[in-house]
């Protein structure tokens, strides 16, 4: 487990890059770190294995205070935190096999070959093991980099923008591979990205970094419910919402507008129609969307409910039956 306590980083005196960062990874999770360019994501990632030493604060790996370690001990700790760099940084003088074997050679391990072949099989590169790096496609390079990172069976896997250089289809395959590796090998994984798609697809939890501070840390679906929609506006474009229409309706105040979120079991029940019948209210769908967060359905609905004497009873029961429900009021977004 990786734990940061009150980590601060300054580049020069007045460039405060990371501000009081504290968090802890959970066992075998995939944690996404998202933020815009310049938010401090890469700097934060580099502090995890002290490639970038923080100006102040403590960093622990499994309760070992690594910020205090000597050079030699730090080398050992670094072997337990594997990094997949944005540019892969593979060795051109070596084949795929030799690149993956490199991490094991450092340890003077015997029986390198079966271990490497096993990992190459897992990442789907067995057939390319004798190819040189310059002969690989972007996706294959990324697979090699991931294989090299996990071959030592590390405690933590760090991925820096793993899909930023890949096309959509390859991105999907690489994300599947990250999920598979995380599940199969049980390695706690931290992904730095600026793409919300990556967060949605693979992350259990999200850390949202803005101007060097943590603006949000929690389960992925909670991020989407956050009322502070500013977090989402940076990334998550619910462009489909007809904001003008909703604002008009809010101003007229002739009806109630509800934002409803379905998550987990509530996505499978016909809650709205059952309750509409029960309380004889009429509802009009202004916006609806279902997407998947790590294969769990997540639905958003904006409903217009016309004025009705049963409205408050309807709302109370609705709140009990859906994951999240809020009444939209004027003046908001």
């Amino acid at each position, binding site marked *: 487990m990786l734990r940061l306590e009150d980590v601060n980083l300054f580049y020069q005196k007045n460039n405060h890059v990371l501000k009081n960062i504290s968090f802890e990874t959970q066992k075998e999770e995939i944690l996404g770190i998202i933020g815009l360019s310049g938010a401090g994501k890469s700097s934060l990632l580099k502090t995890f294995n002290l490639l970038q030493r923080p100006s102040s604060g403590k960093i622990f790996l499994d309760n070992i205070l690594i910020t205090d370690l000597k050079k030699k001990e730090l080398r050992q700790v670094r072997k337990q935190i594997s990094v997949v760099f944005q*540019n892969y940084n593979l060795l051109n003088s070596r084949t795929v096999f030799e690149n993956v074997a490199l991490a094991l050679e*450092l340890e003077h391990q015997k029986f390198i070959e079966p271990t490497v072949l096993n990992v190459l099989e897992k990442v789907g590169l067995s057939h390319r093991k004798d190819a040189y790096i310059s002969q690989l496609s972007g996706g294959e390079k990324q697979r090699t980099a991931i294989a090299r990172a996990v071959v030592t069976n590390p405690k933590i896997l760090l991925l820096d923008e793993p899909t930023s250089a890949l096309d959509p289809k390859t991105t999907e395959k690489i994300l599947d591979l990250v999920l598979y590796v995380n599940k199969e090998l049980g390695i706690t994984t931290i992904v730095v990205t600026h793409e919300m798609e990556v967060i949605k697809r693979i992350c259990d939890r999200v850390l949202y970094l803005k101007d060097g501070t943590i603006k949000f840390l929690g389960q992925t679906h909670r991020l989407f419910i956050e009322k502070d929609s500013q977090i989402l506006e940076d990334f998550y474009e619910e462009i489909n919402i007809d904001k003008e229409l909703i604002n008009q309706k809010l101003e007229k105040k002739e009806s109630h507008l509800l934002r409803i979120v379905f998550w987990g079991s509530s996505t499978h029940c016909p809650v709205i129609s059952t309750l509409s019948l029960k309380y004889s209210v009429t509802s009009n769908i202004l916006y609806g969307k279902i997407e998947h967060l790590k294969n769990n359905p997540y639905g958003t609905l904006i409903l217009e409910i016309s004025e009705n004497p049963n409205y408050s009873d309807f709302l109370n029961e609705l709140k009990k039956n859906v994951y999240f429900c809020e009444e939209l009021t004027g003046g908001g977004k």
Partner: protein
Amino acid sequence: MIEELLKATIETLYMTFFSTLIAFMAGLPLGILLYLLSKKKDHASKIIYTFFDFIINIFRSIPFIILIILLIPLTKLIAGTIIGANSAIVSLSIAAIPFMARLCENSFNSLSHEMLDTASSMGMTTWQLITKVLIPESLPEIISNTTILIINLITYTAIAGAVGAGGLGAMAINYGYQRFRADILLYTVSILVIITQLVQFAGTLLSKRLRR
């Protein structure tokens, strides 16, 4: 005459080979040292780097013929005499070491700067960084740079020849220039051209082979 040409050719090759060898063996480690120092952020490393940088620049700015003269005491100490191929190797090597160091430093600098981060994140020792990353990754570059060095040294041997080192350069001056034997001048220069072409050809081929 052919015998003398042959002897001069062998002398030239002898001087070039051994000064290259010494330059390589001393210049490569020095280049590695320069590269590693330049990447460190602490104050002491910066000062040491600046010092080495300064010394190398001085040696590289002294014209070779002057360097030979300045090195006479050292040459006497090492080779026992200031005449002949062995003496020339002393000044040739000393001229070539800083050049080689600089060429190697440049080769390493052309690697992705993230390579160092990768190596440290994998927990490599400095020795592992040098033997597993720096040298193998920049080998094609080092080979082409060594080719440049060798060709430079071949022309330097000719300069050294003017002050008693022997070799093709000396022969060109003694016979061709001082005794007006244009034919010998032509022969010696032709041999120098052929050697240079062969070295360049071999260097390019090897470097290409190693580039993946």
